[in-house]
């Protein structure tokens, strides 16, 4: 895929002229779950057929948003009277605040953040309202582990609606190398008008998105993460962008935020980002990381390699180093593309 793809998807570069290129772009957007985002930006002048395809994507996203709004409504209902005001994260927050990043976005789960002290009550209330631990974690052993070691809740699924709430009290796993000062971010969270739930303010929303994309994983959905970061960034005021770095430092997220700003500059050439990069960034992300992100984002031929590198990286970021040595040193280097070792199952 061409590097201009992301710009075309967010509407800052014209769609490809050639039909086959255009088909390829739509396929790329669909496969990377950003067709809805593409459909939600300027669609004037596109063909009827493309409009139909966009409409499909928007109908899907519309369903997700209705579902999510209702889940928030049910969450409030469940917590009513407790005084607990959870912070809705990610997609839920964008939908609740009508952010540009919500446009056409598919959302499946509701992620909320509460304080550690509120966990027990939140759990009790959610269970009373019909949520229960998801099947994958529903055995004594797992439950005990959560209680003893993590002080976190397993994902909860609603028995009737099948929807999932993920209750967090931190933004990164306990074992992670860096950790983010959640309390500081919670303090400046703001109420969603007419509700009892909160979201981070715009700057923290961007920071959290960056943390989620670059500090917490193998960047599983790079194109989607990058479009999200771009959309969030594009809605920041001048005041917001000027305090972004300071805030990132204060909450302990300088590195992912730097990577995010580099990525926005690299893939979208957004106004403001380059200047910011020069002035305040001490360093660009290492070239291998840059290469890996680019390669994985655009499905280049070496994407499996990029994936492997990001995989190694995510493990590094999540685990104390000594845990890494045995299994990564021995295995990850011998990484191979996945097609060659199929486990053949008999036809059921």
């Amino acid at each position, binding site marked *: 895929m061409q590097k201009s793809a992301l710009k075309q998807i967010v509407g800052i570069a014209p769609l490809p002229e050639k039909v086959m290129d255009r088909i390829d772009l739509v396929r790329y957007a669909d496969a990377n779950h950003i067709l809805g985002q593409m459909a939600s930006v300027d669609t004037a002048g596109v063909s009827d057929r493309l409009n139909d395809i966009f409409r499909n994507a928007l109908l899907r996203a519309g369903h997700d948003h209705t579902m999510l709004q209702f889940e928030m409504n049910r969450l409030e209902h469940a917590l009513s009277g407790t005084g607990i005001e959870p912070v809705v994260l990610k997609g839920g927050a964008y939908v609740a605040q009508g952010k540009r990043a919500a446009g056409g976005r598919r959302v499946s789960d509701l992620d909320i953040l509460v304080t550690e002290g509120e966990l027990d009550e939140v759990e009790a209330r959610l269970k009373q309202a019909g949520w229960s631990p998801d099947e994958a974690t529903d055995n004594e052993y797992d439950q005990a582990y959560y209680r003893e070691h993590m002080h976190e809740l397993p994902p909860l699924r609603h028995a009737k609606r099948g929807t999932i709430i993920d209750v967090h009290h931190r933004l990164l796993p306990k074992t992670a190398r860096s950790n983010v000062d959640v309390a500081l971010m919670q303090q400046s969270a703001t109420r969603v008008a007419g509700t009892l739930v909160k979201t981070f303010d715009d700057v923290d929303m961007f920071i959290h998105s960056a943390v989620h994309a670059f500090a917490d994983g193998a960047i599983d959905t790079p194109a989607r993460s990058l479009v999200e970061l771009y959309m969030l960034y594009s809605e920041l005021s001048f005041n917001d962008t000027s305090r972004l770095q300071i805030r990132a430092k204060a909450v302990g997220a300088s590195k992912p935020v730097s990577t995010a700003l580099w990525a926005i500059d690299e893939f979208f050439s957004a106004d403001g980002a380059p200047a910011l990069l020069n002035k305040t960034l001490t360093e660009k992300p290492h070239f291998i990381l840059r290469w890996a992100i680019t390669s994985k984002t655009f499905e280049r031929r070496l994407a499996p390699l990029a994936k492997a590198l990001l995989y190694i990286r995510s493990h590094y970021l999540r685990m104390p180093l000594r845990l890494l040595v045995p299994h990564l040193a*021995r*295995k990850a280097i011998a990484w191979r593309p996945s097609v060659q070792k199929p486990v053949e199952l008999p036809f059921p």
Partner: protein
Amino acid sequence: MQPEYSFVTIYNGFVVTEKPIVPDTSESDSETSENDRIAERRQLLMLGAAGLPMMLTLKASAQEVLVSQLTCAIKLPKRLRILVDCDGRAWVGTKNIKYTNGKGFKVADIVKFKDDATYAFPAGDVPNYWLPDNCPIEECSNGGGGDDDDDGFDYETASAELDDLMRTSLPSQADGIVLASARMGDGDDDDDEDDCDEDWIDSGYAFYELSKNSTILPVDHTSGTGWSPQANTQGLFIALSLVYESRHGDAPGWPGISCIVSIISYFGTQN
């Protein structure tokens, strides 16, 4: 073909009143139908008192359920570790096994891990890919970059690229990319050189770890070939899940087994 019945059917636990079909002469006077209606209502309330719900929500369609079968994800509730030996046995548990460069795994940890394992898989269950690199039968030549593979897949270029990258990045520890090198003790100060050889073993085992909250999308481990576990630790987890499923079906116990089963059953119900 005269209709000979007119009663109440229970469908999905919800009562649907039924009208007799045809003939058009069945237009009865309104008084009778009003009486019928009252009788039906009383019957409904009796069923309600016996526990029948008074409302029913239309469920997502069978097909939509099928789609969600495909998109189901397994989120590991806790860290999961897998020990694999040269015969393809696997032990799954949570304990750690100490590893020190130049010495290997701590034998006591391995014993303890096996004892405490939540699941154990017999010999031959682990696909070759995840078997240890150093098995006693073979030479202990390590780190050669995987020339022991058997099939003709075209990864030569990819492999060369990777090796280059590895070399380039070795000294740098660039932004989180860390690769094993001889000097990576990192704070593990409790292992002294005086441990005798029986305490440590450097061959015959591979140890894998999936971090807590690892999200595994089983569908990512399928391809045109049906199941095609990726060549990583998640792939091993999937491979073991499939083994588990083949023995125990959807019996609970293995994390996310219902997700695996739903994808398998999708084969049978498609179209």
